[in-house]
């Protein structure tokens, strides 16, 4: 009876998660959707505490208090520009929790001395593998995004071979543990190798490919939870984990498509690890580009009919979102139509730019996806590129020799005029020189984006 009731409660929780996610299909209903999902989690937690006999309350209490405090403080203090790291970190904790539960179950069976049933054995090992990979991989992603470690792709000789051998050994261990489920040293080695695998598989992935990695780790954290569901024989975990797994896979797929690269290429390609070699580096001196003053740029913007702003990671780095909004407001007050063009992989995680601009109170109906905004560029007077590079490189459309070839881009070059705000002529993440900078209708506006926007605001005021 108790078990039936708890199963019903978990079903209710799962339904609330699905309904909550469904409400995320519109910004207007999304906030309530999130609370419905949170409430679902509350239902699941309360049901667990009621329907499962609890003996050791102190362990639960200590863990819950520490976790809630840490999570609450993190959520309240994180800056919007720090959101990619935050998501990576939370992913890691989710994966870590799943691996720990599987580990604890392993010890429980071991201690009871009754041997581990085959189906639970497989689930425990998979749960440890996926959970530990998620944990260490997310921590590495966190370090990269925080720039605690280099954001570039880290490569070493025989990298793929080493990773492949590691993966094979891990799979071998799992097979071995299925046959001999209570072999403690093998289990510990499996845990260690899984952690190592997480580190080594994220290290060769460079900064601009982070949207894919974060989405994939997001998916893993769901799969890990679902695996844990198989371990403890709980449908609630399986359904919820599968939902998250599906969500992460969809995002991963969208991100890969937006870069016109396969998942395998992102994971193993070590894209962007050698800038100088691919980029024509010194060749920039030979081609000529125009740079313009803030005054000229301000005039151009103030007398335009339509301005489209294309932000990239540089916007997040210089935290210029509030200044962008202020300038846009002034332009709109003068009768200029201002729109924002958002490339799916702009920034370091899916939707990164949208969150930053939302923080600056930019209404979400002024933000346009790539497919919506591209037809608008030919009748846009000025397009403004803020700290974006590879996602606006026209070479992606026609230069078959470019590593970017085939990647869908924002057609900013089709506007009557393009202003590129950038700190220097350095190539973007892909290490490819951007031919946009040398087009006759492009002008460079050098400097930090935030400073540049402040100057533009001052100039527009004087017009």
């Amino acid at each position: 009876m108790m078990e039936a009731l708890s199963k019903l409660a978990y079903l209710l929780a799962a339904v609330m998660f699905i309904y909550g996610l469904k409400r995320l299909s519109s910004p207007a209903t999304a906030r309530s959707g999130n609370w419905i999902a949170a409430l679902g989690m509350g239902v699941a937690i309360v049901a667990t505490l009621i329907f499962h006999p609890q003996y050791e309350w102190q362990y639960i209490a200590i863990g819950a208090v520490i976790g809630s405090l840490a999570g609450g403080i993190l959520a309240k203090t994180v800056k919007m520009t720090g959101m990619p790291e935050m998501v990576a970190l939370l992913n890691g904790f989710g994966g870590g929790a799943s691996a720990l539960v599987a580990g604890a179950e392993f010890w429980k069976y071991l201690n009871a001395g009754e041997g581990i049933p085959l189906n639970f054995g497989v689930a425990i090992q998979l749960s440890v593998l996926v959970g530990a990979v998620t944990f260490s991989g997310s921590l590495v992603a966190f370090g990269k995004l925080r720039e605690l470690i280099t954001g570039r792709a880290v490569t070493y000789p025989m990298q793929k071979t080493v990773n492949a051998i590691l993966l094979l050994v891990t799979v071998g261990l799992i097979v071995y543990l299925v046959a001999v489920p209570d072999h403690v040293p093998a289990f510990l080695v499996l845990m260690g190798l899984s952690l190592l695998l997480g580190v080594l598989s994220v290290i060769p992935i460079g900064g601009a490919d982070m949207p894919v990695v974060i989405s994939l780790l997001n998916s893993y954290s769901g799969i890990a939870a679902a695996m844990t569901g198989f371990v403890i024989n709980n449908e609630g975990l399986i359904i919820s984990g599968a939902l998250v797994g599906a969500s992460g896979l969809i995002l991963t797929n969208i991100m890969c498509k937006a870069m016109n690269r396969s998942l395998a290429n992102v994971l193993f390609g070590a894209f962007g690890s050698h800038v100088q070699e691919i980029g024509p580096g010194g060749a920039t001196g030979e081609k000529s580009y125009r740079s313009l003053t803030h005054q000229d740029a301000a005039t151009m913007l103030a007398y335009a009919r339509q301005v489209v702003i294309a932000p990239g990671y540089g916007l997040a780095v210089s935290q210029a979102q509030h200044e962008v909004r202020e300038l846009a407001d002034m332009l709109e007050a003068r009768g200029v139509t201002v729109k924002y063009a958002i490339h799916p992989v702009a920034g370091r995680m899916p939707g990164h730019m949208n969150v930053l601009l939302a923080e600056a109170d930019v209404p979400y109906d002024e933000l346009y996806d790539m497919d919506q905004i591209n037809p608008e560029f030919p009748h846009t007077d000025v397009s403004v590129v803020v700290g974006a590079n590879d996602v606006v490189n026209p070479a992606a459309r026609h230069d078959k020799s470019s590593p970017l070839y085939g990647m869908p881009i924002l057609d900013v070059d089709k506007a009557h005029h393009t202003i590129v705000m950038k700190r220097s002529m350095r190539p973007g993440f892909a290490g490819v020189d951007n031919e946009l900078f040398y087009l006759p209708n492009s002008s460079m506006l050098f400097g930090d984006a935030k400073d540049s926007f402040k100057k533009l605001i001052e100039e527009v005021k004087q017009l």
Partner: protein
Amino acid sequence: MLVELVTLFVIFVLAMFVGFEVITKVPPTLHTPLMSGSNAISGITIIGALIIAGAKDNRISSLLGLVAVAFAMINVVGGFLVTDRMLHMFKRKPEEPTK
């Protein structure tokens, strides 16, 4: 035992399909809140953590369970709160003066 496992697997596969259906409808604007929100949902592993931390099995299991509860709780509380903070910022263009 095998039937039990397969039943769970059936649930897993069907739930994946539900996930695909629901989540393809989320617009790109909300992709970050989707990630942090779904991430919080993956904290459902808290159920497993609570059961193992509370059960009177042995000290090692309970200690691992304690850490798992803390980790999962960070995931759950942090995830839902930060998602709410983000979603709170998404505003429509003020057409009629609301404030």
